[in-house]
């Protein structure tokens, strides 16, 4: 299929929308952890599905070893959200959340699933609401798809039935702590086109 990339206005509008949503997610995270969360400038790419893995590696860092939580979402836009936690994140997190023992595997898993759920929910609802597409959004239960794995094993193009992917990357980090995580939102071609139409509407209103 022929594919028209987003204009710089579309990318700019989406980046701003994601930025506002990220602010809400960060405030929710800060509320739970009781610490200040630093926000990144959201990064947006549209890539052929075959290049999605490479795009993610470049955004997250080639040599990063991560634990990944996946959650899919469906509304009038559908796609996948991934939250990638760095290797040392958990100890700090457990400490912040007031858990005594992070070595207990069940506890660790539960903590990462809870935080992922919080970030994905706040971010996506924030985005969808701003493009007025937020009614009836549903999320799958979060699940861990990789544990302490290299990032290159994460997104396998052959496992995607997509031709293209919109990749949105956000980074949340904490002050005075080692913890940081990436939130990736991946959307296939139908959602890219739908989002383009929604962004047109946003742009026309400005």
């Amino acid at each position: 299929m022929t594919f028209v990339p987003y204009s710089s206005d579309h990318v700019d509008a989406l980046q701003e929308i994601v930025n506002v949503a990220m602010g809400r997610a960060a405030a929710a995270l800060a509320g739970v952890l009781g610490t200040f969360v630093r926000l990144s400038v959201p990064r947006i790419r549209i890539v052929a599905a075959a290049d999605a893995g490479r795009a993610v590696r470049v955004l997250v860092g080639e040599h990063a070893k991560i634990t990944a939580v996946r959650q899919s979402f469906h509304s009038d836009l559908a796609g996948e959200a991934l939250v990638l936690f760095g290797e040392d994140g958990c100890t700090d997190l457990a400490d912040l959340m007031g858990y005594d023992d992070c070595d207990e595997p069940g506890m660790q898993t539960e903590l990462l699933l809870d935080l992922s759920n919080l970030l994905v929910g706040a971010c996506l609802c924030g985005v969808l609401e701003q493009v007025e597409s937020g009614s009836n959004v549903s999320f799958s239960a979060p699940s861990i798809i990789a544990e302490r794995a290299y990032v290159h094993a994460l997104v396998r193009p052959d496992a995607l039935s997509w031709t293209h992917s919109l990749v949105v990357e956000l980074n949340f980090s904490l002050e005075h702590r080692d913890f940081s995580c990436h939130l990736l939102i991946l959307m296939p071609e139908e959602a890219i086109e739908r989002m383009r139409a929604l962004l047109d509407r946003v742009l026309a209103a400005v």
Partner: protein
Amino acid sequence: MSLPVLVVDDSAIARKMLIKALPADWDVEVTQAGNGVEALAAYRAGKASVMFLDLTMPEMNGYEVLEAIQREDMNSLVVVVSADIQPLAQQRVKALGAIAFVKKPVSTEQIREVLGQYGVR
């Protein structure tokens, strides 16, 4: 004389939205900056009696802009306009001399309210 207003945001759309929200009856001369470095240059050129400042930006972020102009002379009414709605972010920018913190997206009423207290109307 027109009021020099500087709008600082890395997003062109966000700048456009803010400029659109400025009260239509104000006589303003708007300058735009896409990052903190451009903002400081415009500030030093006297183009910012009022500054609307985003926080999350590449090159130089909003906190760094506030620190820099505080060191110089703080000759501007700075309204921070941000998506970062953490209470600590609001406290910090006020400690750095911002007169107000408003969350995105901004309304005309909010602009009138925060600047009206400083005699801008």
